């Protein structure tokens, strides 16, 4: 079980192109394997390609070159919107630094939205969303809009949204970056529960404090994997 591979990247390249056609390479041949149920932190300096790597894994970016195996299947060449949207909807859950909630919708509607895209009936997605909000202590805030919630509460709503379709993989981009230390701690506690439930977590962070919750830290520099550091929980 523990040895099953969730994600495998082989020689992955990703470049951006400026308006004048100039190529800006960001990922320069990433080789990476992430096991099912593993909690991985990606660290590295700004501009090192952390977020781009996460976006490539999250199927938000097509690769420039290389292979991307998800559950053993090479999806690096998939261009079909329907398939990519399906993967983002059912297989992955995204958590952002700035929460990225819909300000017009209540917490409940925000959480239920991916289930709407998945085609779940209204009653079922509302029940699921309520249960998730309850599990993070926000049962009484279901009808509140994001602007009526604190940063920590908003991030918990965003986590619920990422979880509603029971994804196998959680992708988080600086999930504590906009939070105070207490809220950040609460969020990381929720993250450690993901591992217990067997979910794979890939988290971008630049804070060692946060990274220490992970099983493994991957350091990126200049678009390449600098080192992979397997941590032992007991060391902390």
């Amino acid at each position, binding site marked *: 079980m523990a040895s099953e591979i969730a994600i495998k990247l082989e020689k992955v390249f990703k470049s951006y192109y400026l308006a004048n056609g100039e190529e800006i390479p960001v990922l320069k041949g990433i080789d990476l394997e992430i096991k099912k149920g593993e909690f991985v932190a990606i660290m590295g300096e700004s501009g090192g390609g952390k977020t781009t790597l996460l976006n490539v894994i999250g199927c*938000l970016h097509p690769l420039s070159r290389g292979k991307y195996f998800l559950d053993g299947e090479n999806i690096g060449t998939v261009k079909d919107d*329907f398939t990519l949207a399906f993967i983002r909807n059912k297989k992955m859950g*995204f958590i952002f630094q700035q929460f*990225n909630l819909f300000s*017009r919708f209540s917490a409940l509607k925000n959480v239920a939205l*991916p289930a709407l*895209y*998945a085609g779940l009936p209204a009653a079922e997605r509302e029940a699921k969303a309520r249960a998730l909000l309850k599990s993070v202590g926000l049962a009484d805030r279901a009808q509140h809009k994001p602007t009526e919630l604190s940063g920590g509460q908003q991030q918990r709503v965003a986590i619920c949204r990422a979880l509603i379709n029971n994804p196998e993989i959680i992708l988080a981009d600086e999930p504590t970056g906009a939070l105070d230390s207490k809220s950040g701690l609460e969020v990381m506690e929720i993250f450690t529960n993901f591992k217990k439930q067997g979910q794979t977590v890939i988290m971008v962070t630049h804070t060692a404090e946060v990274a220490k919750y992970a099983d493994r830290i991957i350091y990126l520099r200049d678009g390449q994997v600098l080192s992979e550091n397997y941590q032992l929980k007991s060391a902390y």
Partner: protein
Amino acid sequence: MAFESLLAKKTRTLLSMLGIIIGVATVIAVFSVGQGAQESVNSQFRNLSANSILVMPNRGRGFTSSSKLKASDAKLLLSAEHLSSATGAVQGNAAVSFNSIDKNYEVVGVDQNFIIISNLTISQGRGLESEDVDRKANRAVIGATVVSDLFTAEQNPLGAEITVAGKKMEVVGVLKKLGSRVGMISVDEAVIIPNTTAEKSILGSRGQVMIATTVDSVDNTKAATTSITAILRAEHKLKVSQEDDFRIMDAGSMVAAAQESAKTMTALLTAIAAITLLVSGIGIMNVMFVTVAERTKEIGIAKAIGGKRADILSQFLLESVILSMVGGLIGMALGQAAIPIISYFNLISLASSWTGPIIGFSFSVLVGIFFGFYPAFKASRLDPVDALRSE
């Protein structure tokens, strides 16, 4: 979801709907004006058979020219080729009173043939006879509205003495209610008297003369017209250089001309409605582009959490369709509400029809789909990462 988005920007939503509202109201107006014009043409000519030819005075463009056309010219026209009948009428307004009731009615001086040629029915008494015409008798046949205005239910109008322009006249007949016009005469509101009487003592020279004739076959209309022209020019002693002092109109070309002008009016208004809807569509497209630009980040989020292109396309398309549909409904309500108001003030002849609202509403939905599609399509094609980065 689409409703919530629209409600969040109420003023903008309302303003962008305004074009559609006006457009649909215009479409409804167009159809009721068109229908109204058609109905008024129909009612004007309902009692005109296809083989009638009307002769009316033509006063020309000069100050000095005047028409010599008289109701009695009808008699001469009986000798024209292909004419089977001719009746002369002179028409004008006069005060009519009975007991203490005093009202203004259309007074029509005719000969004994008029009632038959015009397909009118006598409900009580008799029509005018040749003796009445020859003797310039003070006798009248009155329309149904005149009867109900001047007489109570118990009073018998037959034999009653009414006063027309100061002259006492005996009512010898009552016409059956018609509800429409014959040529330019509203028969229900008419007092019909011998044309000789009308020309001599009631209307004098201020009456409008009209001669109604029937041609034996529609195919002979042209030959009859030529013959009428020759007879009247000779009678009026017109020089070759002078224009006709009369106009000849045959039923077919009158109906065609009236229908043509009704059609032209409808076409013109349809063009206005189409332009209004086009402009309102561009307005909606503009608003949708602004909305898409404002919500770029949301589109990025939606894609990141699994929204398909089709989901995003349908959400924005739905918004523009709701926008135009609600606008269409309001326009429909306004348009329908305006019809009785316009009719009340008698500004233009209108008829409410179902075609207008249905076409207006369908077009508003089509405008929403057509002009909403491109912005929605652009939204669905946004790159998720670029969209997420926007603020």
